[in-house]
């Protein structure tokens, strides 16, 4: 009887973890949508860019430039790691990073529950 209870609890915990993970993702998407609504549509280029070079960095609005330069320095990082460098809130960095992904400047890769952001450099190991 007791062991049955235990398995039940374990599966409950697993379910709760899954729900939390989904909520995290949903939250992240909401942040992006909110951030995008705040921005003027002119910030999004019609043609997708292919490089995040210094001249492009210069053309970005201040808040995004800070995030983009941090990714350039770190190479590949999570929103947490970027927030640590910029001293801004994780949620804020997450929103900016996702916006840079949507703008085509950064790539995003999910490993388990973590999302990594990076600049795609052809033929180079990340």
């Amino acid at each position, binding site marked *: 009887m007791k062991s049955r209870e235990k398995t039940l609890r374990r599966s409950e915990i697993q379910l709760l973890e899954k729900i939390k993970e989904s909520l995290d993702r949903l939250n992240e998407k909401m942040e992006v949508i909110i951030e995008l609504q705040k921005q003027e549509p002119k910030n999004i280029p019609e043609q997708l860019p292919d*490089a995040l070079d210094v001249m492009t960095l210069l053309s970005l609005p201040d808040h995004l430039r800070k995030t983009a330069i941090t990714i350039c320095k770190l190479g590949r990082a999570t929103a947490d790691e970027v927030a640590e460098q910029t001293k801004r809130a994780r949620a804020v960095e997450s929103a900016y990073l996702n916006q840079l992904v949507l703008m085509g400047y950064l790539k995003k890769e999910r490993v388990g529950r973590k999302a990594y952001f990076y600049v795609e*450099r052809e033929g180079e190991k990340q």
Partner: protein
Amino acid sequence: MKKIIAVHSYKGGTGKTLMSTNLAAIYAMNKHKVALFDMDFRAPSLHAIFKVNSAKYWLNDYLNGVCNIENVIVKCSSKAGDNLYLALANPSTEAIREMAAKDRKWEMKALGRLLSLRNTLLNDLEFDYLIMDTSPGLQYSSINAIVSADTVIVVTTMDISDIEGTKRMIHELYDLFEKKTGIIVNKVPIEMISTLEEREKLRKKYEEISNLPVIDVAPCFCDVLRLGGNTIFSLEKPEHPFTKILKEIAAKIEKL
């Protein structure tokens, strides 16, 4: 404290190379391990000053991703001792043409390679200073150097077009990258700053004009021109008043 310093200017001929070579020599003499990089790919000059005519690998090759930075850096034994190392830009016309034709994607990769120098040079190879001599004005190689540096030294003359351009460049470009910046006003007629008080007064005046931190004002000595850039001034003439000023500037930059 370990540091990456970029030496830049708005216009050409302000004394960037004079400043960067002497800074490097002075730090090396003070027992710091120093790397001096020629980042002026449009008009390379360090090979001529240090009399190196051929190299197995140039800085161009490192940025092109065909070699590691260890392959480019060469030890330069001089009166400064054995602590000064050089990374040279390829002076051949073909190389200059090739560097001028690079696209945005290449510049992005080059920025990545420059940013990684902090780890390889300062941490792994234990350099204390990396000094980058750059091309004047707004161009890719210089802005890449500025973005990867901790401190940017901007050398200007008293020329109004130079001062105005420097001011605009710093307020509209450097500030965007949040860089620690210091200005050196160079080639000031010696009679204008013959006393320490006059020098300090003029420094403050330029600080007010530009609304930017001015590290120092440096006089124009004919003795500097007489050497024709053939040697590093502070090493050749250690007792000269200009060398004394260069040493003061080097100490101020260390504290920036």
